[in-house]
């Protein structure tokens, strides 16, 4: 057992290596590039018996990954934001091939305007495509989730590709202590890939991913894919239990922190939830009964588990690091859908949007979110969603706009420059 400092990217690369990946189609994009550089170096040095191919685009990369998986080998790939979207057509297409592989997505805010810093709009755009999604909060979790993802994807009741998501910069380039499983133990856990009958052999001709005409047959294929994705809940529970037995680290589908006697709770995805966890501890010290729910699985959506964990909690603040234009926070909307009509659902479900493009969410903001939630419960009135932004931030923005020669009258009226 080795414990070393690894970045999230480094952890992802180790996950691919320990899973005995055969094939890595690649394309560089910030902030993922370190993953493929690491894998490439290991292959060149003979430390990893795999082939890496740099494709000419992410659309081609996803195609190559799935075609190789459909031929019967174990495949790993990685991308981010614009690259994930460039390949979006193929994300939908290849999940219908029912050929499993693992794709690490390093979450990054989407253009426009273009940025390199993290948020979750990219991975949210992929939520309907048929890939399963595991969300990580630590570099350790990235490595462990990659190993679990292979088993999850390849399970006979699932056979769907899986995305393992980590936040750009805050995980991808940040070093944390990570325990590296022994290669043999990891390989025992992941096992060998059994392609069953989805593969190419000269002696067994097969026409794969063919056209389908007719609404009823098409619906069959789509419904079955959906049901396979839903099987992810039971299979994930099974294999995360096995993982805990073999490696001692526990990863339930939703991480519930100090929720047992809580009357309010944060709900958050990803690495910023670590900050929410710290906020919970401070708030508890101040006498508030608050907890945190951090879902790891976003697809399949763990609706029943959410309902169980939130039963008895009156006020929930969902903090979305994503924004569906014209609608709001995606996790908030999905959670509302899972809770609606259920007897012990929280009476107040609040929405906060923050962290876009890597914007920090301070401890004080968590404290304030908790207070607004408590007030909502007391008054039995849920306020409208809040886009987290401060006075100071607006002042800074006005300065930038002035430099960019944005209309001076507008800036003056908004009370920007003159009140500097």
């Amino acid at each position, binding site marked *: 057992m080795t414990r070393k400092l690894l970045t999230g990217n480094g952890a992802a690369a180790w996950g691919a290596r320990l899973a005995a990946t*055969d*094939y890595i*189609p690649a394309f560089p994009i910030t902030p993922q590039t370190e993953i493929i550089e690491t894998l490439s170096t290991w292959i060149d040095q003979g430390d990893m*018996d795999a*082939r890496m*191919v740099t*494709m*000419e*685009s992410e*659309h*081609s*990369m996803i*195609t*190559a*990954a*799935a*075609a*190789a*998986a*459909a*031929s*019967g*080998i174990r*495949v790993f790939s990685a991308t981010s934001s614009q690259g994930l979207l460039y390949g979006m*057509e*193929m994300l939908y*297409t290849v999940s219908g091939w029912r050929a499993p592989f693992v794709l690490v997505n390093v979450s990054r805010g989407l253009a426009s305007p273009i940025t390199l810093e993290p948020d979750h709009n990219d991975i949210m755009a992929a939520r309907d495509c048929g890939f399963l999604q595991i969300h990580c909060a630590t570099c350790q979790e990235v490595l462990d989730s990659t190993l679990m993802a292979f088993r999850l994807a390849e399970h006979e009741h699932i056979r769907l590709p899986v995305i393992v998501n980590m936040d750009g910069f805050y995980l991808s380039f940040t070093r944390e202590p990570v325990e590296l499983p022994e290669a043999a133990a990891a390989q025992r856990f992941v096992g060998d890939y059994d392609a069953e009958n989805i593969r*190419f*052999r*000269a*002696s067994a*001709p*097969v*026409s*794969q*991913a*063919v*056209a*389908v*005409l007719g609404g009823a*047959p098409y619906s069959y294929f789509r419904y079955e894919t959906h049901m396979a994705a839903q099987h992810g809940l039971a299979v994930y529970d099974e294999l995360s239990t096995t993982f805990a037995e073999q490696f001692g680290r526990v990863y339930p589908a939703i991480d519930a922190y100090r929720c047992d006697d809580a009357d309010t709770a944060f709900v958050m995805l990803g690495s910023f939830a670590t900050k929410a966890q710290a906020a919970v501890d401070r708030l508890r010290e101040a006498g508030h009964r608050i907890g945190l729910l951090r879902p790891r699985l976003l697809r399949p959506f763990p609706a029943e588990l959410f309902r169980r964990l939130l039963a008895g909690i009156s006020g929930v603040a969902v903090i979305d690091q994503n924004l569906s234009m014209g609608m709001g926070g995606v996790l908030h909307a999905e959670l509302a859908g899972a809770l609606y009509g259920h007897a012990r659902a929280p009476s107040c479900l609040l929405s906060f949007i923050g962290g876009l493009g890597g914007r920090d969410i301070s401890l004080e903001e968590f404290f304030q979110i908790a207070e607004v939630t408590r007030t909502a419960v007391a008054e039995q009135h849920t306020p409208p969603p809040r886009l987290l932004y401060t006075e100071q931030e607006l002042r800074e923005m006005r300065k930038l706009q002035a430099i960019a020669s944005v209309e001076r009258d507008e800036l003056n009226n908004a009370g920007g420059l003159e009140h500097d």
Partner: protein
Amino acid sequence: MTEQTVTLYRSMKDLPSTHLLGTGTPMCAGCGGLEALNQLYDIIGEKSVFINAAGCMTLLSVYPFTPFRGSWLYTAMASAPAGAQGVRDALDILIKKQRMPADEDMQVVVLTGDGSAYGMGLSATSGAIERNLDFLYICYDNEGYGNTGQQFSAATPHGARTSTSTGRRGYPGFKKDLFAIWAAHKPAYVATVAGAEPVDLARKIEKAMSIKGPRLIIALSPCPTGWDYDPQDTVTIGKLAVKTGIWPLKEYIDGQVVHTKPPRERKPVEDYLKLQGRYKHLFEPERNEPLITEIQQKVDRYWHNVG
């Protein structure tokens, strides 16, 4: 790079007389693309996996029916060569790691129309050639986006009527020189073929099958539906395409371009054009002499440069 100098195919007698590709597909009656595919498949054989991009031929396999005796994978319009990369690499890895016996290997063949080959798929093809992927690429060229109703593509010839070039002078653009673009990558082999010239086609496929690396073929595919003619004229039109010099039969190999069947006395392009409804506006209600001449001169210039 080895090259087969002795051919099995000297005349039509040497061509297969039972055909591997299954009948019963929904291609139009008289489809020049299907004719070429039938001839190709007889020589490529069933130890193959065809990787397809969106186009008319996508409907060869509609659940639960397929005409292939080998394998098939439908990908998407832009990325069939990337699919070929994945399959080829996977087969190599399986053999190298001894998880699959070598006799289970297959020829990886990309099959696309001109829409994908000349346009959306060009980036993926360029990448595949540049990576020296060992694959065969067959483009069935019916000079337009056929499956969606024959809108013009980058392969549409100057002056042709399509559903998006219905003016009196037809398509204002010029047919992209895909052969030259592919050849500029210096792949192992590039060739043009036509179902109307089956012996020439057979020899080229045979040669392609004996080489490794990227091997790319464009098959002229006369299209009764898109080019607007009676299906029985498919071979007549194909032969005229060659005899008028409009469709040069050539190959690129070892850095050289060789014309395999240069027409001895070129027939006037008019003989080819007037059989097709897509060129009707060149002749009715009155002859568009300048446009006919322009087409003829372009062909003349080409052969003049060939020398």
